[in-house]
């Protein structure tokens, strides 16, 4: 790896933490939303898998 840098400066690098936060919140909200919609009976079935 030769030390060549492709961008001279970090244009708006502060936005990185922001992007990651938004991304995470979106994924998290999506997972919660879908989990809330889960079917109870099916959940019970899968939950009992180790005990079979």
């Amino acid at each position: 790896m030769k030390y060549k840098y492709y961008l001279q400066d970090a244009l708006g690098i502060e936005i990185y933490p922001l992007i990651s936060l938004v991304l995470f919140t979106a994924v998290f909200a999506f997972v919660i939303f879908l989990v809330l919609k889960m079917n109870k009976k099916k959940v019970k079935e899968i939950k009992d898998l180790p005990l079979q």
Partner: protein
Amino acid sequence: MEKQTFYYDNKIVRNFALATTIWGVVGMLVGCIIAFQLVFPSWNMNFAPTTFGRMRPVHTNAVIFAFVGNGIFMGVYYSLQRLLKARMFSDALSKVHFWGWQLIIVFGALSLWMGHTSGKEYAELQWPIDIAITLIWVVFGINMMGTILKRRERHLYVAIWFFIGTWVTVALLHIVNSFALPYSWIDGYSWYAGVQDALVQWWYGHNAVAFFLTTPYLGLMYYFVPKASNRPVYSYKWSIIHFWALIFIYIWAGPHHLLYTSLPDWAQSVGVVFSIMLILPSWGGMLNGLLTLRGAWDKVREDPILKFMVVAITCYGMATFEGPMLSLKSVNAITHYTDWTIAHVHVGALGWNGFLTFGILYWLIPRIFRTELYSKKLASIHFWIGVIGIIMYAIPMYWAGFSQGLMWKSFTPEGTLTYQFLETVTSIVPMYLLRAVGGTIYLTGAILMAFNLFKTMQKGNFLAEEKMEAFPLAKVYKKTGNEYWHNWIERRPMQLLVGSLIVVAIGGAVEIIPTFLIKSNVPTIEAVKPYTPLELQGRDIYVREGCYTCHSQMIRPFRDEVVRYGDYSKAGEFVYDHPFQWGSKRTGPDLAREGHSKLRRPDSWHYNHMLAPEDISPGSIMPPYPWLLTDDLDTSNTAAKIRAMMTLGVPYTKDFDQVANNDLMKQANNIVANLKSEGIETKPTKEIIAVIAYLQRLGSDIENVDDLPVR
């Protein structure tokens, strides 16, 4: 459709269980020895392979990859077959996996003892072994995915997602971090240098904790805690959120190992934010584990297995609360480089990993040997010994870390440092003794367990092939009408694998790529020049002896550090450091500016100090290195090393490799002449000369630079 008859392979489970037990005892034993070395330096035995710097990587690698590694495989091979109602995909692959892993452990330990190390924590093994690890990991992956594909149960229970997530992420971490350029058939230099190397290393290092010590063990928790308590997991919905949130967040948290270093601020901030967010999924998972036992507390009181599991999950909770706290910059300022970190990891390692493994072993061995545990009483005794061991380990380390951290920062009213570095060490040596005793108590418990399990095996009747019947899966999946979204991915292991990979790759890429590409992240300093051949050889000895396990080379921008060690470290100072040697623990002082005129010691001081540190610095716990004074430096590889560095982009002049050894001898002769004027007779061919050259070079580049960059 007719039921099919098949057999679970218990032999592979037993083998991994044996390996877990044996390597556990060995790894912990090495840990106890190095703990005593910090109290009694004579335990280093004046012998290179048994000195602290080489033994410590043996300990960490042994407990992580040998003890916990085999523990993971034991648990996966047991639970996977049962959760999927299928035998492992291939007996041959199982065998290759088992024996391959054990060979890697043996060769790994030998190579570390011989001084072959990459110098990157928990990734010390050199490139040939790294390749072997990759191959065996792929074998494990094929065996696991193959089993999943021929399963007789449609839905993948949550434990299996954790196994899949673990598998892809560890593969990614290991490959990216291990990139190295070989210069001999066993050694090589890290592909990355300085700041970049540090970021990649701690992205790896942190996630080795996350994806080797945590996620697979959470998978085991989700299987074995319900098993041992005979009740289903408290909330399956939580476990889904737990999984996705945990793998998403964990991958970002690495930079919290590099707070206040020369790592760009934005990367540090990302690390802090995500580390704090980690509390949520971690505690969700912990509560899910503990609440599984709701209504079964009477059983917990009776059953040592459940006791082990409860303490394990509680320790997981404590460690994952403490971790985010240690990521707060203000807390980290005091705790970093101290024994606090050591306390933190051992709450995780002894409590979470150790106790969960013990619980599983006590549960599993009697089952596959179709008998009762040899002595339940002994297991209970082991439990209490273990608890006392953890407490005796952790409390002295917290105390040592906290008090040393404060002592380093203490100033007199006149504005000078209150304590010499060595004073802060000698004052905590009693704590080191208590810790060593605590560790030994914990080890005693593990030995009791080994005896108990051995006796159980002896009286039992091993069931190598466990008969089972189940319906095969229908070719076409019929929806039952009770579908929910996640069923979709639970039926599709490959998609689950790719999904996990995408989730973890985002975090890694966003952090790492900009650090490589953006020039302002590493401002250049003209005065910083490549190492001379002699210094390079000296540096490689520094890496070989594991000096980085006790010495940092990274001065943080704090008043006390600047007064004690000189100007804080700049990113541009490390651009030729393959590998970086910032270290993570200051058992000895920082050495980043050891050669700067502010700290510079005479060559003869270093000569005498390396021979017998205690003579020069009374009360020192640094090991003596007498062999550096007698062994000849191997210069046959100088040219190859220079060429490797040139390939990595270090700007030596063209064909410098041809004359490197002349240059080396010239510098060595100067040092020998200098030593002679200070009353020491030695030869320029000795290793010590190279070490002195390296130590005197540290921090000297920027000696006369006035306009240093801010970072």
